[in-house]
């Protein structure tokens, strides 16, 4: 829908601009944003809290999408991020609430656990040549089972059942309150800050480090990458390890925002994370994409959800509209001939 312009140089400028995935991602975001300006939920969209809350809510998805982007760039996929989030939320709650661990021990422990499970997925995929879809599907089921096993199927909250069936009630750990608080005079959630930090780390890996170039090379053509001396196995293990690590961070944020570890947390979050990466413009076939695109993907999906929510659209309508808008956004982004 580019307006017809008589000036040819201007026309080529626009079409040249549209060749960049970033421009297309921004365009999709602008379209969603304009929809928000029209359907503003009685003016709620014009106030900062709506945007601040959207950023808070989508930080967890965004953190998952950071890891997902790294994996998708290697032409892989990680279905286990949602389960890993649930597992990490349970373990983090268990350690901090029930075991009274110092958060500066509990946080690294959870992150290490996530990274190790990610490395296991990566090892199965690269070393044992199991398809990423299958290996991470297995990890998804396994991690969910582990979360349920550790928690005994119950939410790990500040109400703790004793051996005799009675309950004792603990206070919310300070670390939960800290992660669930806001900075800058209450204008930015701490989880959003954590999301920005994760974006920065992913950007560093993908755009500034040698390993990032390896990941793009593997996604572009794995065989060619191997023949030109890229350590394919190590690089892939690294990618899935990072994805597991980010899932664990997301799990910690989720637990802190719920003030409990829910073994069911994160069900189907992997689909949102994949949608975010893809809607940003990262190619599922691998080799193309960036973390900046994932940031725009997060904002696009986040605003879409927020606009549907402030307008109190019914659930049925939301599902259908989300489907339609995702397809439209992807079509809008398609490279024009």
């Amino acid at each position: 829908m580019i307006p017809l312009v008589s000036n040819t140089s201007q026309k080529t400028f626009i079409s040249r601009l549209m060749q960049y995935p970033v421009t297309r991602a921004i365009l999709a975001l602008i379209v969603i944003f304009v929809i928000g300006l029209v359907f503003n939920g009685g003016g709620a969209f014009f106030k900062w809290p709506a945007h601040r809350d959207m950023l808070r809510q989508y930080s967890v998805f965004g953190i998952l999408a950071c890891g997902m982007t790294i994996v998708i760039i290697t032409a892989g996929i990680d279905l286990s991020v949602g389960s890993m989030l649930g597992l990490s939320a349970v373990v983090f709650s268990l350690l901090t609430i029930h075991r009274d661990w110092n958060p500066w021990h509990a946080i690294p422990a959870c992150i290490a656990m996530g990274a190790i499970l990610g490395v296991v997925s990566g090892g199965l995929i690269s070393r044992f040549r199991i398809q990423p879809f299958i290996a991470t599907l297995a990890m998804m089921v396994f991690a969910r089972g582990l979360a349920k096993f550790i928690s005994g199927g119950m939410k790990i909250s500040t109400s703790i059942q004793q051996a005799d069936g009675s309950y004792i009630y603990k206070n919310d750990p300070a670390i939960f309150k800290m992660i669930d608080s806001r900075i800058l005079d209450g204008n930015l959630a701490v989880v959003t800050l954590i999301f920005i930090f994760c974006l920065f780390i992913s950007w560093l890996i993908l755009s500034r480090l040698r390993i990032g170039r390896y990941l793009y090379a593997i996604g572009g053509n794995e065989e060619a990458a191997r023949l030109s001396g890229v350590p394919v196995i190590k690089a892939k293990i690294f990618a899935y390890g990072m994805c597991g690590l980010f899932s664990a961070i997301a799990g910690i944020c989720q637990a802190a925002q719920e003030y409990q570890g829910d073994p069911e947390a994160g069900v189907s979050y992997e689909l949102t994370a994949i949608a975010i990466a893809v809607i940003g413009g990262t190619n599922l076939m691998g080799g193309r994409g960036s973390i900046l695109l994932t940031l725009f993907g997060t904002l696009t999906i986040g605003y879409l959800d927020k606009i549907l929510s402030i307008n109190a659209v019914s659930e049925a309508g939301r599902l259908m509209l989300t489907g339609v808008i995702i397809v439209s956004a992807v079509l809008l982004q398609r490279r024009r001939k």
Partner: protein
Amino acid sequence: MKKTRSMLVGIAIVLCLALTAATWSAEKGTPENPWVIGMSQCNLGEPWRVQMNADIKSAADAAPSIKVIYKDAQNDTLRQRAHIEEFIGQGVDLLIVSPKEAAPLTPIIRNAYTNKIPVIVLDRRVVGEDYTCFIGADNKKIGEAAGRWIAGKLNGKGNVVELKGLMTTTPGQDRNSGFRKGIEGTEIKVIFEADMKWLEPDARKEMESALARFDKIDLVYGHNDPAAHGAYLAAKAAGREKNIIFVGIDGLVQEGQAYIKQNILQASFEYPTGGKEAIEIALKILKGETVPKEITLKSRVFTPENLEKGGEWLPEMPASSAPAQPAKKEQ
């Protein structure tokens, strides 16, 4: 390979014989040879259902004459059907089923019932009358009681946010329609309603939207306690939790009642699991006593004032608010 397989088959046969011998050897219902009860749970992913199994377990542990085998269908109707088939095949003495859905599970429950296996149906109904006893609470009545309590608390006037459970499920529909009936004739307005799919993070998100849109919210009615808690967290982040009353449903010790203790909720309406009652009825059936066809569980309301006393029983509702009976055969 062949040798191992035939050995395995041999072991299996011996085991089967041993088992049959054990079951035939003595009279049933003793600690040495207890009655076996098959418990088919539709989804242990929900804390409330975990609580139901825990209630069954604690009641069953106190009765040495029975042994309960648990199966979790993980929210899959066909898997639950397979579980019930397995129980029938294995020849359990009694079945407790908390069905996921009525229609698809009715034939298999009827099959068990006509094969002289007593069936206790817990929480959700099946079609027809081919079961021994139905035990369940009434979501419509609980929703209506919540509506009346809210009307009283707000003096019949105010702005309410309703965070609904999955509206494709009967508990969601009944907690909604009961509540609307309870506030009928008052000046209470539901200014914002959204489906939070029973999930706390979704409830928090929807409440944030409600807070962004409306400056005056008097009360939040959540279809479960996690929803009310999620709404509280959203209001607290906006610095508005002091001016809003939060009400939930379920009243589990570790959730709703704990939130009341922490002054987060002002009321939680109990939705009893019926686990304890199921075992009591099961023991009666196994001993050959007659039991009523239907038991409607009473529920309590928990508030900060009555929590120490163990809550307050809800008054009996008029018959007009009784649940819609499922289609009965031969009527």
